[in-house]
């Protein structure tokens, strides 16, 4: 159960986390890109980039196409933003704000992340244009492939906690973080997470080889909202990863929320950096690797985690 006052607090926290997270991610991405390119970064310009870009997109016209599916087109970024915001409800940023009464946090998270597929598909479908549609169908193949590994590694993390609640999983890492206890977990989670946010090597639906794919008919405020919502998903994925694999709010000296923020930013940095260093994977290759390598490895992760738990239990 959750009170209205609590709900307001949660709303404010989520809005703050998402806006700050998106802002930071955009700046980190820009900075990392210039670093990889060995090009000079002008710090002030990089820091103000999100504001200026937002202003430009607000003043740019929104594209329409011949007979688009207008309601669904409007709905796509709204759905993606709703997914990102709602998923943050179960991610505890400190021991006090932990998990608003949703006991099966990772089930809830997995269910929301499955809906990303719908949002991306809607965005591709509704413009009635070839490149976005191909992008949309591409993403379905991609999503069906990363879905399993994502859910499996989260289950692996739930085994030592004996609970599906994210707070319980954080508490269960008091002695040892899951990233060490289950070494396969975090890498697989991050790969799947790149898929959820269709980012970097797994940015298949909006790739350059489709002239932007699902983004190719977007402009102005529509593009702004779509990209913001997508980065918000990335932030949510990183926050969940920090809670489940990096011990969440636990850490010495600093307050829990600070630890959680640092760990989330570290994961964002890894994912964004991978985007600049690893080329976009071919779709077929990803599907094949996901089913023949990632899923078996994720299953191995679950059973290895189970074996460790059993061996360590007092019986």
């Amino acid at each position, binding site marked *: 159960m*959750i009170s209205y006052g609590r709900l307001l607090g949660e709303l404010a926290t*989520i809005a703050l986390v998402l806006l700050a997270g998106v802002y930071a991610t955009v700046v980190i991405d820009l900075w990392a890109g210039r670093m990889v390119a060995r090009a000079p970064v002008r710090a002030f310009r990089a820091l103000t980039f999100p504001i200026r870009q937002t202003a430009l997109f607000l003043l740019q016209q929104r594209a329409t196409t011949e007979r688009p599916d207008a309601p669904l087109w409007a709905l796509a970024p709204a759905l993606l933003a709703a997914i990102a915001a709602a998923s943050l409800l179960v991610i505890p940023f400190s021991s006090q704000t932990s998990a608003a009464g949703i006991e099966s946090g990772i089930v809830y998270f997995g269910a929301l992340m499955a809906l990303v597929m719908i949002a991306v598909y809607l965005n591709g479908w509704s413009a009635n244009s070839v490149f976005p549609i191909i992008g949309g169908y591409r993403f379905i193949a991609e999503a069906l492939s990363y879905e399993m590994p994502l859910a499996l590694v989260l289950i692996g993390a739930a085994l030592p906690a004996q609970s599906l609640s994210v707070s319980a999983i954080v508490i269960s890492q008091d002695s040892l973080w899951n990233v060490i206890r289950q070494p396969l977990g975090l890498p697989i989670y991050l790969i799947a997470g790149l898929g959820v946010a269709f980012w970097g090597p797994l940015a298949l639906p909006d790739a350059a080889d489709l002239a932007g794919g699902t983004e190719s008919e977007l402009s102005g405020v529509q593009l702004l909202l779509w990209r913001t919502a997508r980065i918000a998903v990335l932030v949510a994925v990183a926050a969940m990863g920090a809670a489940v694999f990096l011990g969440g709010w636990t850490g010495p000296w600093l307050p829990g929320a600070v630890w959680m923020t640092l760990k989330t930013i570290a994961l964002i940095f890894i994912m964004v950096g991978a985007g600049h260093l690893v080329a976009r994977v071919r779709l077929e290759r990803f599907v094949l690797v996901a089913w023949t390598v990632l899923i078996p490895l994720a299953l191995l992760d679950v059973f290895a985690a189970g074996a460790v738990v059993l061996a360590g239990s007092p019986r």
Partner: protein
Amino acid sequence: MLTALGGSLIIAFVAGGLTLGLRSLGGLLTPPRTTAPERVPFLGGLGPETHAWSRFHVRYYAMALLFLAFDMEMVFMYPWAVVFLREGMKAMVEMLMFIVILTLGILYAWRERALRWS
């Protein structure tokens, strides 16, 4: 008081509503354009010959079916994770048997080339 699910629904609606509101605001600042050539979908300069909406050939349908089987498995695994420690070795062995059978399914699909399509 709200149920947790109600709370999450409210948060989702607020986020979605804000997005739609901003979209309308952008539409007010700069109204979407209207002439016919400006609406032509982008294909690199040439106009389309047909509508893009079509009965798209989803060539990975076999993989999608495989996914359904595994998605059901997930439904069993969530409660299994909670009772795992209580049930001990029995839970471990039972799930292992189940997974081995499913993994054989992947191997079969792989051999039948269900995971590639071009």
